[in-house]
Structure formats: C-alpha cells, structure tokens
C-alpha cells in the first residue's frame, strides 16, 4: 500500500507541482479571463472608421424622401443611438435578452455612418440609378445604396378581398459587403418613415399607436425561500452544463496526463526498473491514484471559481450540498474508467504518436456526453435521459447532468447508476490491468485493438 502511495505521490508531484502545470492550468486561464473582462469592452468600443457615402432614393410616392433624409442625417442617427436605454449592469445581475440586444445595438451603432441622401426624383430610371453601385467597394464611399419606394407605399387604392388596404413596398439595393449595421440603419429609417406616413394619412397619431401597441413586461421573478430574484434564462441549463464540463475537464486532464506519463515511463525504459520494486497492478493503481489527485485539484480550483461566481451572483442556493457529493462520487468513477483506458493505451504503445489510433475509441466515449448533455438536460426525466444515465461508460456524466437539472431523478435511480458505474469501473480497471501488464514490456510494433483484446484474454 505504501508503495502505491509513493508512486501516486510521485505521479502527482511530477505533474501538478511543475511550472508548466501551474502556468498552463491556472495562470494562463486567469490571465485570459482578466484580458477578456478588461480588454473586450475596449476592443468592442473601437469599431473602426465610420462609413461615408451616399444613399440614392427614388421616391415614387413623392412624400417620403425628405423625411428619410432627415432620419438618416448624422444628427438624427446620433440622437437615436443615445436614446437607446442602456441599463446599468449591477454586479450579480445578469442582463435580460432585451437588455443584451440593446447593448449590442449600441455597440454596433457606435460609429455613426455619415450618409448623404440624394433624391433622384420619382421619375428616375432605377436601372440607370443602379449603375454607380457597380463601381468600387462599400469602403471607398460613393453611392452605397439605392432605395426604390413604390408609388403606393403610403397611399393605396388597392385592397385585398377582405377589404384591407394593400400597400406598395420598397426595394433596397446595396454595394456588396456594405456593413450590416449600415444596411439596417437605412432600412429602419425607410420603414419608420413609411409607417408614420401611413398612420398620419389614416389620421392616427404615431405616438398614440406606439403607446397602444407596446406592451412592457417586467423581468420574471423567481420566488425562493429567501425572497425574490430575477429569473435568469439559461440558468437551468447552466448548472448541468457547468457540472458536466467541470467533471469532463477533470477526467480528461487527469487521464491525458496518465497517458503521457505512462508512455514516457515506457519509452524512457524506466518501467522495468519500477517493476523490479512493485507489481504492475501496484504501479497502475498508484499512477491512477496520483492523476486522480491532479483531476481533483483541477475540479477543486475551477469548481471553487464556479461557486464563488454563483455566490457573487447571489445564486448559491441553486447548489445543493448533495450535488457536490454526487459530483465527487461520479467524478471518481468516471475518472477511473477513462484513466484505466488511458493507462492501457499508454502501456501498449512506444510513443505518443502511436497512441492516436488506439485513442480514437476512448475519445469517442468521452465525446458522447458532450453530444448528449443538452437533450438530457432539457428533458431530464424523459426516457432518453433515463436510459443514458444507466448506460456505461457515459452514465456517470449523464447522471450528473440529470441531478443538476430542473427535475431531480429519484434517489433509487442515482444509486442504480452509481452501482452501474462501480461495476463498470471495476471491469474496465481489470481489463486495463491485463493490458497494462502485458503491454508495459512489449516494444516494437504498436498493437491494434484486436491485439489488446487478445492480451486481455491471454493475461
């Protein structure tokens, strides 16, 4: 036992207590996070030079051109941008989708295009007016867009069968690669202009219509034991996704290091020296244990960051202590399964390059939870989710997704899934140990999957 712990400690120390691990695992992600928080808004702010150019209008209705020109003037656009209500994001409050899109709109509109509107007259030939659009690019200025507004866009004598007036439309032609934000600015100006003209024509006040048609809804509130809080869309998915990714990350990192160190020990020929002191099973168990500690460290650090994040967002109550207990249990079992496979692959090959082909089935197993977690989290009590959470070797991941989603599975289901994980971990570990024992001392041609199965039978 003490030997196994010796091996485990060396494995942990040589992986986690190195500059590379600390920098790669913690410092770099932290730096990236800080950069994203501080630099991203600055980068978003600077949108580059504003677009300059001309918008030609053929207004066959004869009443809109002036209004559109007014709406597209820099002054009007500036005013429009500033009028967008940018809510102050308070700490611990996630913006609603509406707030988010407003902010995005502002960000997009930050550099106001300098547009001059030229009215070509109702009788102008649209085909001839298109010609300037064919020359140059949107960035070079010149004529950027041509709007052709139908004569019946505001006043019409046509009606549908049910007697509702049928209005004419407008058509916008633009130079290729004209910015989406500029296009939508022009569209908005024309649409609003037509809408208001129609309302006035019908004797209605646009302000009144706006007031009548606009329905404001207050932010949905969640009622909890502690009180009320704004409901956050996506939170229901955040928890299962977060738990699964955390678990997956810890399993993958531990497993990957296990593969690397096993291949290293084999290729540096240190393995037989070790085998003179310990049995292959002791060696493998020690190594798995050592990398389990590495995985657990990753989970601890990133999990703590997540919990701190939830605390800051006053959302800590969505976490239940039992969730963490299940997470630890299922993590250990999922890790043992993946790590055993990694150890088996590592022992069978001579160098990392050769590990690739044998890694494919292992990677496929790891990818399955990634593909399945969304449908499982969205319908956590559905037959699909239940089956997935009993199906080794992905059941550990899927059960964690179910446990952390909106509908908790029944305790017996969790326990059955846990039992399945225990049994499959044991079986995988046993098979891997056989491959490990044979593989460690096999040099030369790397084996294929068939050979590995033969080794399991042979040992």
């Amino acid at each position, binding site marked *: 036992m003490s*030997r196994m712990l*010796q*091996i485990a400690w*060396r494995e942990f120390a*040589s992986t986690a207590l190195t500059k590379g691990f600390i920098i790669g695992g913690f410092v770099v992600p932290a730096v990236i996070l800080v950069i994203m928080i501080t630099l991203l808004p600055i980068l978003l702010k600077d949108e580059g030079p504003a677009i300059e150019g001309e918008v030609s209008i053929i207004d066959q209705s004869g009443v809109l051109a002036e209004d559109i020109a007014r709406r597209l003037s820099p002054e009007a656009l500036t005013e429009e941008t500033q009028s967008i209500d940018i809510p102050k994001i308070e700490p611990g409050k996630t913006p609603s989708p509406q707030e988010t899109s407003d902010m995005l709109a502002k960000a997009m509109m930050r550099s106001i295009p300098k547009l001059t509107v030229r009215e070509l007259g109702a009788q102008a030939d649209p085909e001839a007016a298109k010609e300037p659009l064919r020359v140059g690019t949107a960035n070079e200025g010149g004529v950027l867009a041509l709007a052709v507004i139908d004569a019946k866009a505001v006043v019409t004598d046509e009606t549908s069968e049910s007697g509702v007036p049928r209005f004419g439309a407008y058509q916008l032609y633009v130079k290729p690669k004209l910015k989406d934000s500029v296009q939508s600015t022009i569209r908005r100006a024309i649409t609003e202009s037509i809408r208001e003209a129609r309302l006035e024509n019908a004797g209605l006040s646009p302000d009144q219509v706006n007031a009548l048609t606009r329905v404001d809804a207050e932010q949905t509130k969640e009622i909890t034991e502690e009180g009320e809080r704004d409901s956050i869309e996506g939170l229901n998915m955040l928890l299962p996704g977060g738990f699964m990714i955390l678990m997956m990350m810890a399993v993958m990192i531990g497993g990957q290091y296990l593969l690397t160190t096993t291949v290293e*020990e084999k290729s*540096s*020929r*240190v*393995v*037989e*020296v*070790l*085998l*003179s*002191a*310990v*049995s292959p099973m002791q060696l493998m168990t020690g190594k798995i244990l050592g990398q389990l500690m590495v995985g657990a460290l990753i989970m601890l650090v990133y999990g703590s960051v997540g919990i701190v994040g939830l605390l800051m967002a006053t959302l800590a109550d969505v976490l239940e202590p039992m969730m963490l207990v299940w997470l630890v249990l299922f993590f250990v079992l999922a890790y043992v399964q993946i790590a055993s496979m990694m150890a088996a692959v590592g022992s069978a090959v001579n160098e990392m390059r050769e590990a690739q082909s044998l890694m494919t089935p292992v990677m496929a197993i790891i990818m399955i939870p990634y593909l399945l977690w969304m449908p499982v989290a969205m319908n956590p009590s559905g037959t699909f989710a239940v089956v997935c959470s009993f199906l080794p070797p992905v059941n550990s991941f899927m059960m964690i997704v179910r446990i952390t989603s909106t509908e908790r599975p029944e305790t017996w289901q969790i326990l059955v899934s846990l039992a399945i994980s225990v049994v499959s971990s044991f079986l995988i570990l046993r098979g891997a140990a056989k491959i490990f024992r044979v593989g460690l*001392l096999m*040099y030369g041609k790397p084996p294929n999957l068939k050979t590995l199965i033969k080794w399991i039978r042979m040992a």
Partner: protein
Amino acid sequence: MTDAIRISDLHKSFGEKRAVRGMELIVPAGSLHGFIGPNGAGKTTTIRMIMSIIFPDRGELSVLGKKSAIESKDRIGYLPEERGVYKKMKVLAFIKYMARLKGVADAELHGRAMGWLEKVGLADVAAKKCEELSKGMQQKVQFIAAVIHKPELLILDEPFSGLDPVNMRLLRDLIREINDSGTTIIFSTHVMAQAEQLCDNIVMIHNGQKVLDDPLDKIRSRFDPKALLLEPMDRSLDEARLTSIAGISGAIKTDSGWEIEIEDGLPPSEAIARIAGQIETARIEVKRPSLEDIFIEIVQDESYVPQFETQEVAS
C-alpha cells in the same frame, strides 16, 4: 543454506516463438553466475520470469525460498536490460525514490544514496537532473538503484552494455565486492569475455535452452584443448616440417606463429616435448579455449547433447 534460485522445466512462449524451453537451473546462495548466450537466446525472458515480471507457461520456480519474486522483491536487486531513469528527476531524488520503493527506511535514505554516489564518483551530480547525465553516468545511477537496498540476490541483465573500459572495470570491481559480501549475483551478457573475467559459474543459453551449466574451469577442461600455440625462433618454418613430427595432425599459420593441431589421445604435454625436441622455439603453450570458442562449437554442433541433461537422466 538454501539455493537462491531453483528452476525446473520452465517454459515460456510468445505466440509462435518458444523463448524458453524446459529450463533447469540451480543457483546456490552466494555464487556469482553468468548467463551467456547470443541476443535472443532467452536470457532476458528467463530473468524476467525469475523476477516475476512475466510468468512462465509452465514449470516450477522458486526465488530465495519463495514461490515468486513478488514475495521477496525487497530482497532482490534488479538491473533490467531495458533500463532508464526519470529524465526530469534529480539524480539523488531518483535514487531515493527507488530506494523507498524497495523498502529502505527514510532515516537511511540520504546516507546510503550519497554513499553510493560517492563510491561511483557521481557525488557532484546529485542535484542535477538525470537527463543532464551521460549514458554511462545514468547507467551507474541505475546500478545504484538496483543495489541500494542491500539485496540478497542481485540480477544484472547486460550490466556492461554502453560502458567505457574504465567504468566497466569499476562496475566489475563493485560486482565482485558485493558478491564477496555474500550477495548471490546473476548477470547476463552476450560478451563472453566479460563472463570469463568475472564468473565462477557459467550458464550458457541457446535457443531457449540451457546448453552448459558448470564452473568455468570445468567447462574449459571438458572442452579439452586439442591445439598448441607455437612461436618458432625460425620465422621461415614451413607446415611440412611441423606435420612431419609424430602426433601432429595439422598446422595453421597465424600472425605470431602457428596453431598446431594434435592427434586425439596424445597428451598436450607430450606433444610440447616432441616439438620442443625438434624445433627451436621462442614460446609454446596449450591453446586454452575461450568461452566464445566453446559457445561457437556448441552452437555449430547440432549433435551436441548438453551433458547435464544426460547426467540428470542418469541420476
């Protein structure tokens, strides 16, 4: 005293290849045994089975009185043929780690490790990473890792490969010293001269079978010399002159003189007397067969029947 190793009818195959076929071996405690044989003869496979790193298909095996080396790993030192070090680990840390795995008490770790490093002249690299060491230095570190726990049985698989002559001598002296202190030593080599210089007993392995197992002197005497080496005073001596002497069946010119074959039944001392009586000689001696000669003779002679097998059948 019990035998350090007892092996009986040991077999091991890898697929089609029969690596070890019916191996019989007894290594008495305290002896220094050399396993010799060409590459692929089955030496390493036998050693790995002794170490319980791989397991025999059938046969009996006992190591230090136990059924398996696993039960007495702390009492065995092993320097494998495929050996290496943790490249990123420091030399002293590596030796201490191996010693700990071999059950050396923490209190003794540092003293023993430094003592050995000084002994092999590596004390000044104790704090360096293993990857900074030359291959020969790494080999010495590996040797220390194999002996630091004062094993009762030491198994060295090709311990001299990759060493320069100076280090070869150092290692040879260390092996003798450890053997003198009572440790049973088995070492394998495919370089016969090394076994000749070091071993009391030779076990020769060929095609997975033991073909010789005797003290070195006995082997030499069994492969009775049938030739003399002659360095005549007269360099112009010709073959006809030599073969005209009674009992001389042939003569081959060598760089320094002649290799003379003598007829069966004629004692070498008599042949020397006859030659010396007729030819003025600067030097004449019985040609002692080297292990290599003996080995090649055995390998090439398909009708060769290992003598110990007939002895065992008879007994």
